[in-house]
C-alpha cells in the first residue's frame, strides 16, 4: 500500500496510470496490448493504454483551454492532450487584443463589429457564424474578466479598449472604432495562464507533452484520439464521447512565417486522414516584411519612419508600383510588388530570393529613439547592423484563414450531396477550424476573439447534446492500429532524404509558387513539385530510433501533417480563378461573385453556382498518395436572426 501511495504522490495522474498498468496490472477500462484479441505483432511491441473521458480536447492554446474550462465547469470529465506545456502554445505570442463591442470608449454596437468582419472577410465569411461571434464577444470578454483575466482598465475601472485596423463605427461611416480589449501587451499569455489555472479547479486532466497521432473513428463517428507520451514512449487511446480539435494553424508549410515551429497543421491533417474535408485552405494571410530565414516581423513602423525596400540593383522599387503611397501602400500591394521583383530576377542574396529593407540612410539617433526594438531584432535574428547594412526581408505567412469546417456551434461538418452534415463526436475551434468568420481575410484582434468564442461554443454545444457520464461502448481492439503502424514505419524510416531536407524543399516550393503572387504557371509548377515532394516522404530518413523525447520522430510526423496541408493549399489556390481577400491572382485580378457588384444589380442575372467564386473550397486528400479532390460549398449569407441582425449584402470592398 505504501509503495502505491508513494507512487501516487510523486507522479502526474497520467504517468501514474502507466506506472500502475505496468507494475500492478490494474486494468484500465478497455482493451490493452496484453489482450489476445490484438491482431498484429506490431501492436504487441507497443504499450497501449486506454483512457475514457466524457470529452477530449486536442491542443491547449486559447481555443483548447477555453473549451476545456467550459466543459469541466459543466461537469464533464475532460482530458486535454497537448504536445506543449499549455502556456507555451502559440497563443502566447499574441500581443494585440480581443475585439468586443463593449462600448467603453464610445458608443458601440456589435452590429457594427459584425459589418466590419463581414467586409473584412470579403464576403466569404459565413454571416451566421459572424453574427454569433460578434454578438457573443462582449459576454465572452466579461466572462474572462470574471475568471480573473486582468484586462487593462480606464481610470474609471472599465475595460480599456484601443483602436485596431479594420474596425469602424456606424457600418463604416462613423470613423475608427476602439473595441480591442487587451492585457497590456501580453493578452495571449494572460488568456492561457488564466484559463489553465481556472480549469484545474475542476476535474480536468492534462496530458502534457503527448503528441496526438490520429483521430479514432468507428463507423464515421469520432471516438477520440490516439497519442504518444513523449516522456516514456507509451501509446494512449483517449476515448471520449466528444472530441474538440484545437491544434492551431499550419504556418510552417512556408519557408517564411511568423509562427512558432510548433504550428504544423496537426489537426487539419488528422481530419484529412480520416476522410474529412478542410475548407478554404488557400486563404493564407501574409505580412510584407519578415526577416529572411528567421521569419520575425519587421514592423510597418520601419517604413513609416522613412525606411524603404530595395532590390538587387539598389532601386527603391515601390516607386514603380505605388507612385503615391510608395512603401506605405497597403500590405498586399507591397507584398505583391516584392514578389514580382524576386520573380523577375531582381532579388537579393545568392539565391536572389528576397529583397532588402534599408534603414541605414536614417540618422542613428532617430533609429534609436523611434524604432528601438528594430535594431536589436535585426542584430539578434539577422546578424545585421541596421546603421550600416540593409535587412533581408520577404513576405511572411502570418495566419491561416482555412481549416476544418464547422457550423456556428463548433460542430465539424462535411458537405456531400449538396448538404451540410455534422460529424458525430467531433468539434473544432480556433485557427485549426473554419467557422468561417474570417472568410478570405482576417482582421486584427479577431483571432483571439475567434478562439475564445468558439472554444466556449464547443463547450456549450457539448453541454447541450451530452451529459456527464453518458455511457460509451468500449473501443474495438483494432481501432488506432493504422496509426501505430504509421508510427512504427516512420520510427524505422531509413531512406535517403533527411526530414530537415525534405521539409526545406516543401517550404521553399510553397514560398516560391503558392505565396503572395499567384498565377496559373507558377501554381501549376507548385502543384507538380508539391506532389513530387509528397511522395518523397516514403524515402525519408529518421536518425533516432528511440520512442522517448525523439525530436526527429516528432518532426517527421509533423512533416507528414504539413505535407497534407501544403497540398491542399496549392490545389485550392490553383483552382480558384479570382482574387478575393488574401488570395490574389495576377491572371484573375477581380472578385467573381454571383452578380457583378461593381455595377447596379438591376438587369443582371444571377450566375449559377459553378460559374462564380463566392463559395468555400473543400479539399479531401488521400493520405497515401496526396491526391486531392476539390468540391465547393455555398457561403452562408443568412444570419441567425434576421430581425436582430440583417445580412450584409456584398459590395466591392474598398478601404
Amino acid at each position, binding site marked *: 500500500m505504501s509503495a502505491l501511495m508513494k507512487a501516487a504522490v510523486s507522479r502526474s495522474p497520467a504517468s501514474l496510470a502507466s506506472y500502475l498498468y505496468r507494475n500492478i496490472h490494474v486494468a484500465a477500462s478497455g482493451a490493452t496490448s496484453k489482450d489476445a484479441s490484438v491482431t498484429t505483432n506490431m501492436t504487441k511491441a507497443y504499450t497501449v493504454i486506454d483512457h475514457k473521458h466524457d470529452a477530449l480536447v486536442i491542443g491547449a492554446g486559447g481555443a483548447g483551454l477555453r473549451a476545456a474550462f467550459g466543459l469541466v465547469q459543466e461537469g464533464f470529465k475532460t482530458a486535454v492532450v497537448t504536445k506543449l506545456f499549455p502556456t507555451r502554445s502559440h497563443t502566447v505570442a499574441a500581443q494585440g487584443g480581443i475585439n468586443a463591442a463593449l462600448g467603453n470608449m464610445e458608443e458601440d454596437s456589435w452590429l457594427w463589429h459584425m459589418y466590419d468582419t463581414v467586409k473584412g472577410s470579403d464576403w466569404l465569411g459565413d454571416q451566421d457564424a459572424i453574427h454569433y461571434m460578434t454578438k457573443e464577444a462582449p459576454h465572452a470578454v466579461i466572462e474572462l474578466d470574471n475568471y480573473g483575466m486582468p484586462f487593462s482598465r480606464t481610470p474609471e475601472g472599465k475595460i480599456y479598449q484601443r483602436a485596431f485596423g479594420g474596425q469602424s463605427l456606424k457600418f463604416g461611416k462613423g470613423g475608427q472604432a476602439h473595441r480591442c480589449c487587451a492585457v497590456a501587451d501580453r493578452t495571449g499569455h494572460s488568456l492561457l495562464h488564466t484559463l489553465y489555472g481556472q480549469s484545474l479547479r475542476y476535474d480536468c486532466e492534462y496530458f502534457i507533452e503527448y503528441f496526438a497521432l490520429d483521430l479514432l473513428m468507428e463507423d464515421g463517428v469520432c471516438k477520440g484520439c490516439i497519442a504518444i507520451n513523449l516522456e516514456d514512449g507509451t501509446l494512449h487511446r483517449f476515448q471520449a464521447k466528444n472530441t474538440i480539435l484545437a491544434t492551431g494553424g499550419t504556418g510552417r508549410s512556408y519557408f517564411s512565417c511568423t509562427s512558432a515551429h510548433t504550428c504544423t497543421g496537426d489537426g487539419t491533417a488528422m481530419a484529412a486522414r480520416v476522410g474529412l474535408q478542410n475548407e478554404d485552405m488557400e486563404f493564407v494571410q501574409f505580412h510584407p516584411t519578415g526577416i529572411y*530565414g528567421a521569419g520575425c516581423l519587421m514592423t510597418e513602423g520601419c517604413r513609416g519612419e522613412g525606411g524603404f525596400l530595395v532590390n538587387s540593383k539598389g532601386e527603391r522599387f515601390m516607386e514603380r508600383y505605388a507612385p503615391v503611397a510608395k512603401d506605405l501602400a497597403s500590405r498586399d500591394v507591397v507584398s505583391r510588388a516584392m514578389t514580382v521583383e524576386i520573380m523577375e530576377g531582381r532579388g537579393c542574396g545568392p539565391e536572389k530570393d528576397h529583397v532588402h529593407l534599408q534603414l541605414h540612410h536614417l540618422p542613428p539617433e532617430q533609429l534609436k529613439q523611434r524604432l528601438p526594438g528594430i535594431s536589436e531584432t535585426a*542584430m*539578434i535574428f*539577422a546578424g545585421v547592423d541596421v546603421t550600416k547594412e540593409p535587412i533581408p526581408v520577404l513576405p511572411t505567412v502570418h495566419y491561416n484563414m482555412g481549416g476544418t469546417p464547422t457550423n456556428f456551434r463548433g460542430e465539424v461538418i462535411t458537405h456531400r450531396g449538396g448538404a451540410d452534415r455534422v460529424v458525430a463526436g467531433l468539434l473544432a475551434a480556433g485557427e485549426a477550424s473554419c467557422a468561417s468568420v474570417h472568410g478570405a481575410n482576417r482582421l486584427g484582434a479577431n483571432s483571439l476573439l475567434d478562439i475564445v468564442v468558439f472554444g466556449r461554443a464547443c463547450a456549450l454545444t457539448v453541454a447541450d447534446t451530452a451529459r456527464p457520464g453518458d455511457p460509451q461502448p468500449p473501443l474495438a481492439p483494432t481501432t488506432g492500429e493504422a496509426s501505430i503502424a504509421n508510427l512504427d514505419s516512420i520510427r524505422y524510416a531509413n531512406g535517403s532524404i533527411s526530414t530537415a531536407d525534405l521539409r526545406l524543399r516543401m517550404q521553399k516550393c510553397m514560398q516560391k509558387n503558392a505565396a503572395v503572387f499567384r498565377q496559373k504557371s507558377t501554381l501549376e509548377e507548385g502543384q507538380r513539385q508539391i506532389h513530387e515532394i509528397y511522395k518523397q516522404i516514403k524515402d525519408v530518413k529518421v536518425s533516432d530510433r528511440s520512442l522517448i*523525447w525523439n*525530436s526527429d520522430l516528432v518532426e517527421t510526423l509533423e512533416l507528414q501533417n504539413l505535407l497534407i496541408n501544403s497540398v491542399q493549399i496549392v490545389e485550392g489556390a490553383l483552382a480558384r480563378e479570382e482574387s478575393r481577400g488574401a488570395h490574389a491572382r495576377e491572371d484573375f485580378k477581380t472578385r467573381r461573385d454571383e452578380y457583378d457588384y461593381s455595377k447596379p444589380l438591376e438587369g443582371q442575372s444571377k450566375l449559377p453556382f459553378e460559374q462564380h467564386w463566392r463559395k468555400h473550397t473543400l479539399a479531401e486528400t488521400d493520405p497515401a498518395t496526396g491526391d486531392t479532390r476539390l468540391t465547393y460549398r455555398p457561403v452562408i449569407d443568412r444570419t441567425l436572426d434576421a430581425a436582430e441582425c440583417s445580412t450584409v449584402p456584398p459590395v466591392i470592398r474598398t478601404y
Partner: protein
Amino acid sequence: MNYTIIKLFQSYNALKNVQKVAFSSNTTNNMDTTYMEIPLYDVEKQQPLEKRKARLHYQSRKRGMLENDLLLSTFAKKYLNGFNEKQTMMYDRLINSPSNDWDIFYWIVEKKPTPKEFDNEIMNLLKKHAKNEDKIALRQPDLH
C-alpha cells in the same frame, strides 16, 4: 478501491498546486499577470541525464513564439550536449519555470532584469549567444 485512492491523491495534488486565485475587479496596468498560481513543470523529477537532455532539445525547439524557438534551439544545439548535470539543471529550470515565454526573451535580450533565481552562468551564456557576435541569420538548426 485502488481507483478511489488514486482519485483522492490526484485531487490532493491538484489542490496543493493551485494555491490562490484572486478575482480582480480593480486591476491596473501594473498587475502581474502571473498572480494566479499554476502548477510548475516538474524539473526536479529524477531522470537520467541523457533523457533530460533529449527532453530539453525538444523543449528548446518548441516554444510559444518564433523568437524563443530560434534563440533556444540554436543555443541548445551549440551547448547542451556539453553541459554537465548542474548546468543542465540550471537550463532546465530556466526554460521550464517561467509561465510567460516573453519574459525569458526579455531577460535574454536584457530588456528586463533577470530574476535572481535564473541569474547564473547559463543565463550569461544565453545572453552572449543572443548578441549574435558571429552575425549569422538564425534558422532552427538541423537535428543531425
